[in-house]
């Protein structure tokens, strides 16, 4: 057993860069093992992932498109986590958020496009927040554990959306349960078209300007959590509820507030998916992005910069992963769900596995340097 070191003597880059990288490496080794027992070569898979995600321009586009989704859902999980709430309902909140985007864009199509966009973004936040406020309220006032209620709300959202798609807002001319497409003027500008405007020719990728919205949201979350009274209160409740109450901060109010903001951020995934890419609602369009947000936030240590980097990594895994599933018949996309689980395990639950040893090592070597 290594003795615990004085936390103040540990340099910031050890706990915020070295330890997470060691954990990530462990996660990748275990993931490689899974690929091996599936009967494929992990090294080849890694090469395919790197080529698929950054090897060509369209691949980069796809990577950044996935990263956009992960930034939204990662921020959503992180902000609730700062208040010690496990919002694992990002999936359902994103689903309902997408409904908001579509309804506003569809029924206000007479308005100028820029106003429609603004309304649709607000609607995504409003709908996502509405889906999160009920679990938040129940946690705050009735003590019902938010993990179970948010999971249940995912199931309920899924049932509700299938009902709406099949019976209410369905485009009857289509075979499958989807809605009508939005008019072309309302589609968010694609990266491809922006590049073409400047004279570059780029192939199709779903990357659109929602990416900038995600960057903006990251900045907003950073500002909210570390530079405002609201953020301070939420963190205080998360760190020590008793102390927060003693300081006159209401845990109930902050639990609901954190869930509302969290739901609003998850809902914004709908902007990228509905306004940016599909232009209509498909069954189960959030496709697990909500759950991936948990891994993203934990890996990024719940900080917007970390979340941004983790989103890029997961974007790589998704885009490179599809390259792998294309080339390796034994690997399905579920393998990359398992990889997410491994990453959550090592960078979340087991984050202290080697932390004492690593911190001890760095603090000691630096002490010796100071002596000599």
């Amino acid at each position: 057993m290594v003795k615990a070191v004085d936390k103040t003597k540990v340099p910031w880059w050890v706990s915020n860069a070295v330890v997470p990288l060691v954990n990530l490496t462990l996660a990748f080794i275990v993931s490689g093992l899974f690929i091996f027992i599936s009967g494929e070569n992990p090294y080849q898979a890694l090469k395919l992932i790197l080529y698929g995600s950054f090897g060509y321009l369209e691949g980069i586009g796809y990577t950044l498109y996935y990263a956009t989704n992960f930034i939204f859902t990662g921020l959503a999980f992180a902000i609730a986590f700062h208040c010690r709430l496990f919002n694992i309902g990002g999936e359902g909140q994103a689903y309902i958020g997408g409904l908001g985007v579509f309804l506003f864009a569809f029924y206000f199509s007479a308005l100028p496009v820029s106003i429609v966009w603004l309304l649709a973004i607000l609607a995504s936040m409003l709908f996502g927040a509405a889906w999160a406020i009920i679990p938040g309220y129940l946690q705050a006032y009735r003590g019902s554990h938010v993990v179970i209620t948010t999971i249940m709300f995912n199931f309920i959202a899924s049932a509700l959306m299938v009902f709406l798609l099949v019976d209410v807002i369905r485009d009857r001319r289509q075979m499958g349960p989807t809605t009508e497409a939005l008019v072309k003027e309302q589609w968010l500008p694609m990266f491809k078209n922006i590049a073409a405007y400047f004279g570059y020719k780029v192939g199709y990728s779903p990357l659109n300007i929602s990416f900038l919205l995600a960057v903006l949201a990251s900045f907003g979350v950073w500002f909210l959590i570390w530079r405002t009274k609201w953020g301070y209160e939420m963190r205080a409740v998360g760190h020590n509820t008793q102390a927060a109450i003693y300081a006159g901060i209401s845990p109930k109010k902050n639990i609901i507030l954190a869930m509302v903001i969290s739901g609003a951020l998850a809902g914004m995934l709908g902007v990228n998916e509905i306004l940016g890419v599909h232009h209509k609602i498909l069954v189960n369009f959030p496709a697990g992005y909500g759950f991936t947000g948990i891994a993203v936030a934990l890996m990024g240590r719940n900080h917007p910069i970390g979340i941004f980097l983790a989103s890029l990594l997961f974007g790589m895994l998704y885009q490179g992963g599809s390259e792998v599933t294309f080339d390796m018949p034994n690997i399905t996309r579920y393998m990359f769900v398992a990889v997410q689980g491994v990453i959550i395990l090592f960078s979340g639950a087991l984050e202290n596995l080697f932390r004492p040893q690593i911190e001890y090592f760095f603090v000691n070597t630096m002490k010796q340097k100071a002596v000599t």
Partner: protein
Amino acid sequence: MEISADIISLVSATLRISTPLVFAAMAGLFAERSGVIDFGLEGKMLAAAFVAASGAHIFGSEWYGLGLAIVCCVALSMLHGFASVTHKGDQVVSCVAINILMIGLTTALAAAWFGQQGLTPTLTDDRRFFEITLPFADAVSGVPLLGPIYSEIISGHYIFVYIAYIFVPCVYWVVFKTRFGLRLRAVGENPSAVDTAGISVELMRYKALAVNGVLVAFAGAYLSTAINANFFREMSAGRGYLALAALIFGKWHPKTALIACLLFGFADALQIRLQGVPIPGIGLIPVQFIQAIPYVLTVVLLAGFVGKAIAPGAIGQPYIKER
């Protein structure tokens, strides 16, 4: 006559559907009473279902499948213990990791090993469990009232169903009447007191998690080798979370948890029964709303409209010995 047949089939379905919930809720009871949160029931159930189905297929017997499922679930429980007891990591995060890992890994390995888009091969009849007809079931079925109750409700279930309902009084006895049970509850309520008495808090929690793994394995094996004859993607369908909700609603007590499990089972049985049946005065309810009944019921019950649940005192907190 028609109505009573309806009621009999509904009660029988309730018992059948509640069974995995009962196993999982009893498993969760051991973990949570010892102070370790277990949202990982869902993932462990899924793992057990996959391992039981593929084990039974490969080794040629449903019992090997069940045995392997137990080994697998105990291993996963130990992993949860390693992360959250030994390394004092966040317990909820550890559970979420196990759940997501198992959703991915079971389906990925099923695809890689059996090449059937995330299914395991359908088990042949010699490799799966079947309903058991209790003695004299046919003979007494003609007796009014008691006959159908015995032959339709009590007889004719899988062995898991009987094991589950026998387990409940056993769990009660172990948790409330034995020394192990006393220590288990003490570790969950006040670990430092237990530590002072010279009992290892960590060892107690590991023991509780081992029992937890064994019990939840039955739930998974039941899904894939009894009521179904193969494993399919995400076949646990939220049952782990429902079981946990039943446990909380049952105030961490075997008896009330059993009642809550039966309630959820009944809601699900009713849900299946109501699909496509017009309700007098309302008309046909969309099937999606009916399917959502168990989930809505869970939220409503958890919202504490039936009284507030008080969790074990030290739940979710890693025990740190003072130095």
